[in-house]
C-alpha cells in the first residue's frame, strides 16, 4: 500500500467515525427524552391539571395553552403570509421591490426570538395595552413565523409550471381567476406544509411568549383572548429551573419535554411527507 492510499484510509475512517458520533449525539438527545419521558405519559397526565405545587398531576392547561397560541398565531400569520407570497410571486414581477421584500423577509427570519419577545412586549403588551394576553402572544408569534409561511408558499407557487398560467389566460381567464381556480388549488398541499411547519415552530418557542402571554401557574382554561395561558415550552422551562422540589418535578419535566418533542417532530414529519408526495405528483404531470 502506498502512503497515499493509507492517508485515504485513515481520513475516511475518521469521517465515518465522526458521522456516526454526531448522529449518535443527536439520537442520544432524542432517546434520552423518550426513555425518561415515556413512563410518565398517560391519559391522566395529558388531561389533568398540575397539583401540589406542580409536583404532581398533569399538564392539561399547558397543552391547551399551546394549542390556543398555535391557533391564534396561525389565524394571523397564515392568510397574511400566503397573500404576501402571492403578491411577490404572481404580481410583483422581477423589479427591485421584490428583491427588497425578499431581503426583508430573510432578515426577519434571522432576528432572534428574544427580540420578538421584546418587541411584542413594547408594542402589544404596553403600547396597545393588551397586557399579558393570548392576543399579545399570538400576534408576537405570528410575526415570528411569517417568513416560514411566506417562503414555503413562494416555493409552492414556483413549483407550478408556467404552462398552467398561460393555458388559463388563453382560455380567457383573468389573473385573479387563474390564481384562484388554477394556481392555488394545485399549490395548496405544499402551502399547507408551510402551515404545518409554522405550527411546529410556534409550539416550541419560549422566548417570545415569556413576557407577552405565558403564565407560571394557571390551572384554569382561558375565557377570553385577553387572558394569560400556560404553554408547554414555558412550563418545561419553569419545571427545569425554578422548582423547590427538583426531584419531584423531574419526571413531569421529562413528560412535558416528550409531549413537546412529539408535537414538533410530528408536524415536521407530516410536512415533509406531504412535500415528497406533492413533488412526485408534480413531476408526473
Amino acid at each position: 500500500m502506498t502512503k497515499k492510499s493509507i492517508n485515504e484510509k485513515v481520513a475516511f475512517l475518521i469521517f465515518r467515525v465522526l458521522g456516526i458520533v454526531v448522529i449518535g449525539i443527536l439520537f442520544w438527545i432524542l432517546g434520552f427524552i423518550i426513555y425518561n419521558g415515556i413512563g410518565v405519559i398517560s391519559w391522566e397526565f395529558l388531561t389533568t391539571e398540575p397539583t401540589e405545587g406542580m409536583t404532581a398531576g398533569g399538564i392539561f392547561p399547558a397543552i391547551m395553552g399551546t394549542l390556543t397560541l398555535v391557533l391564534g398565531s396561525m389565524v394571523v400569520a397564515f392568510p397574511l403570509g400566503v397573500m404576501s407570497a402571492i403578491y411577490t410571486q404572481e404580481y410583483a414581477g422581477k423589479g427591485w421591490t421584490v428583491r427588497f421584500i425578499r431581503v426583508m423577509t430573510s432578515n426577519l427570519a434571522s432576528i432572534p426570538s428574544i427580540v420578538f419577545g421584546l418587541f411584542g412586549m413594547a408594542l402589544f403588551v404596553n403600547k396597545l395595552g393588551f397586557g399579558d394576553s393570548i392576543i399579545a402572544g399570538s400576534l408576537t408569534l405570528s410575526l415570528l413565523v411569517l417568513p416560514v409561511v411566506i417562503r414555503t408558499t413562494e416555493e409552492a407557487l414556483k413549483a407550478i409550471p408556467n404552462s398552467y398560467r398561460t393555458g388559463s389566460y388563453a382560455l380567457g381567464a383573468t389573473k385573479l381567476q387563474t390564481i384562484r381556480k388554477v394556481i392555488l388549488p394545485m399549490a395548496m398541499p405544499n402551502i399547507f406544509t408551510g402551515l404545518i411547519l409554522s405550527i411546529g415552530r410556534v409550539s416550541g418557542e419560549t422566548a417570545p411568549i415569556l413576557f407577552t402571554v405565558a403564565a407560571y401557574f394557571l390551572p384554569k382554561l382561558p375565557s377570553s383572548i385577553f387572558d394569560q395561558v400556560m404553554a408547554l415550552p414555558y412550563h418545561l422551562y419553569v419545571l427545569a429551573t425554578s422548582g423547590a422540589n427538583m426531584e419531584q418535578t423531574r419526571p413531569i419535566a421529562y413528560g412535558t419535554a416528550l409531549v413537546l418533542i412529539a408535537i414538533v417532530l410530528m408536524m415536521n414529519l407530516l410536512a415533509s411527507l406531504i412535500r415528497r408526495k406533492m413533488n412526485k405528483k408534480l413531476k408526473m404531470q
Partner: protein
Amino acid sequence: MKKMRRILGKIVEGMLTLSGMVTTVTILLIIIFLFKEGAGLFKSPVVEEGYQLYVHSSNPVNSLTPIEIKQMFDVDIDNWKTVGGENSEIMVFRFDDIFNLYSDEEFGSDYELLPVKLEEVISQNKNIIAFLPSQYAPKAGVNVKNIEAKKISIFDFFGGKEWIPTSKPAHQFGVLPLIWGTLLVSIVAILIALPLGIGVAIYLSELAQNRARHYLKFTIELLAGIPSVVYGFFGLVVIVPIVQRLFQLDVGETALTGSIILAIMALPTIITVSEDAMRNTPKSLREGSLALGANKWQTIYRVVIPSSISGISAAVVLGIGRAIGETMAVLMVTGNAAILPPSLFEPVRTIPATIAAELGEAPTGGTHYQALFLLGCILFVITMVISVVAEMISKKPQNSGV
C-alpha cells in the same frame, strides 16, 4: 358584471400588495420600538430616580460617572483625589445613617425637620458624599452642593465593565461583560461544531451510500426542529453534571456547557448547508481531479472543499448568528454571572439570556427596562449584519478561487 369583476380584481390586488409589505413593515416597527425604548436610557439620570447625591459646597467635584459612584459607595475608592477632588478621605453617608445620629424626636412629629438635620450633617463634614431621597432634600444652605444630575452616557453603557442593574445608588449598565460572554460562548460553540459538522458533511456527501444519506439527512433536518428549551433541559440534566465532573468544578453551569449545547444545536444547520455546497461541486471538477491520478481523499480536500468554501463559510456565519441570538438553552445552562474577563470554566452571561432573565423584574419604562431594550438593539444589529454577510458570501460564484 365585467366592470364589477375588474374592480374586484383591483381590490384584491391592492390587498395583496399591502400584505406583500408586511415583513418590511414588521422590521420597521421592530426598529422603531426597540430603538425608541432603548435610546431612553441615555436620557436617564445616573443616580437612581427619586434620589440625589450631595457634597459639601467646598468640594471641587461637580460630576461623577456611574462606576465612580458605585466604587465610592463600595469603598473601592476611598479618597476624593481619585475622582478629581482634594486629598481627603471620602465619608459615605446613606439616608438611613441619619437615624443613628439623631433621635426620632429631633425630626419633629412629621419628620419636617429631617431636611434641616441633613443639611447640618453635610455642612459639618467637608469630605462627605450623601445619597438622599429628593423628597427629603436637605435645606438649600450655603454649605450644601448637589452633584449635577448627569445622564447615563453612551460610554458608560458600551465601555462599562459591570452589569449590576440593582446596584445603589448608581445602576451599573456596562455591557462589556455581556458582549464578551456572548462572543465567547458562540465562538467556542462554532469551533466545536465546525470540524464535527464538516466531517459529517463530507461523510454524507462523499462516502455514505445513497440510501443511508437519504435517511440520515432526513433525520438531521428533523432534529433541527427540536425546540431550544428542550436542548436547554437536556443540557441541564446531562451536560452540566458531565462538565462538572470532568473538569472538577464547583458548578457545572459554565460557558463551556453553553458552548457544547449551542454546538449540538448548530450541527444540523452546518451539516445541511455545507453538505449541499459539497454536493454542488461540478462533476467536471471531480472527474478532472480523478483523471489526473488523484485519489478520492485528495480530490475531497484539494477540490471539493475549496470549491464549496463559500457555502461552508455561509454555514459558519449562519451558525454564529443563531448561536448569538439563542436564548433559552443558554439561559438554562450557563449560570448567568456577568464576570469580566469571562472564562470557559466559569458561569457567563450572554445578551439574550440577560434579557430573558431580567425583563420580567424590570419595571416598565424604567432605566433597567430601557437598558434591556438597548441590549435588544445590539442583538438586532449584530444579527442583521450577520444575515447580510451570509447573504453576500453565499451569493459569490461557487467556483471562484479554484
